[in-house]
């Protein structure tokens, strides 16, 4: 059973345990992590939150260190280390990292090969190894971080930042799904592909709808936060 943290309507403090009568069953299970951060000096930080924050800090430090590496041997060692860190997820995450970086890296690498061969007649092997390994290691590290870390908990040092992140992400996913519906609806309503003018009008209406929806969401969220007394 998923562990839940439930906000009490009367204050900012949270209780841990089974869902109570006050539980908002529609709220994502990660939301209450946000509220564990407190502005009160000396307030205890939830151990899970502390763990996620340490992971975030370690990720930031590792990113800076790896980005400064220029020797292919060191970068290959770092890649090996990150693959070990990924564990059983390594094949999946490695594939995702390669796909995420392939287009940009391939275009830049091929163009640079053409340029150096044209100018000096040699292939820049060291540059190719170091840059492509660095790009791959950093992308893989990011995907491992995303897989292993609850970002909402990691950012719980600031209640407001964490709440905003939860609200923004949950709304983003909903808006994105509706945009997909718009796109499919437009495709399904014509035998031929829509013309440029129609596609512009459809895109503009989608943009207008997004902004209108954003306003409505803001009102709903503000009322929800107010009614739960989360800022008092």
């Amino acid at each position, binding site marked *: 059973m998923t562990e839940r943290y439930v906000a009490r309507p009367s204050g900012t403090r949270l209780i841990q345990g089974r869902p109570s009568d006050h539980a908002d069953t529609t709220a994502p299970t990660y939301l209450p992590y946000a509220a564990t951060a407190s502005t009160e000096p000396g307030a205890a930080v939830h151990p899970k939150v502390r763990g996620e924050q340490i992971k975030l800090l370690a990720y930031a430090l590792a990113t800076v260190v790896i980005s400064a590496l220029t020797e292919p041997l060191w970068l290959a060692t770092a890649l090996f280390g990150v693959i070990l860190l990924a564990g059983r997820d390594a094949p999946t995450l490695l594939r995702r990292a390669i796909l995420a970086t392939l287009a940009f890296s391939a275009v830049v690498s091929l163009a640079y090969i053409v340029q150096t061969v044209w100018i000096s007649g040699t292939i820049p092997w060291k540059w190719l190894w170091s840059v492509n390994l660095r*790009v791959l290691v*950093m*992308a893989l590290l990011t995907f491992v971080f995303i897989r292993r870390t609850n970002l909402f908990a990691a950012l719980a040092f600031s209640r407001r930042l964490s709440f905003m992140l939860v*609200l923004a992400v949950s709304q983003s996913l909903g808006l994105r799904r509706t945009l997909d519906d718009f796109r499919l609806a437009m495709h399904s309503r014509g035998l031929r592909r829509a013309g440029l003018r129609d596609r*512009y009008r459809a895109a503009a209406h989608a*943009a207008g709808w997004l902004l209108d929806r954003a*306003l409505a969401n803001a009102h709903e969220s*503000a009322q929800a*936060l107010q009614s739960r007394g989360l800022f008092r």
Partner: protein
Amino acid sequence: MHIPDGFIAPQMYLPLYGLAAGLWAYGARRVGRDLDEASLPWLASLTAASFALSFVALPLPGGTSAHVTGVGLLAVLFGPWHAFMAASMVFVIQALLFGDGGVTTLPLNALAMGFVGAISAYGVYRVTPERWRVIGVFLAGWIGLFLPALLIALALGAQPLIAHDAAGVPLYFPFGFAITLPALLIPHALLGIGEGALSVLGWRLVERLRVRYRND
């Protein structure tokens, strides 16, 4: 533009993080002196809208499409600081939750697309005379895309100058200004026309809805 991690040297992205952090702190104060029940969800919703705007296809002749940034439209409707903060949050979400774009390129994207894009778009819109508002919105959309492209081209083109080995071989992004400037500016000058047109249509729609976003 989604530049992956590994192409920008620490000599550039670390100072940019410092600069961006200062602007984020100031922006947070400008958006709401202290984010409260009203301003926090408003900024969150704007961020969500900005995120979703990047999935709105920008139709191009020939049946293809690119993607809207929406920074110009957001700046015109809500002001430059709201647009900057929302765009920055989008980059954070994309980088840290979806692995799209890099964390080392985040400050560059936030400063170029979020800050400069929003400030320039809003500035152009504000200096345009009232009776030419439509032209102002179009130019805001265009410059909100073109000027960030110029800054990113300059940042990429500077990499071989700031990070190279003893023999002068680049260690990060390998091409100088002679390649990055035309490679980014020519397509973005054309894409900006579409972004400008879409900004006008989106702006007209919002005006027609008569929704007073600013006052909410």
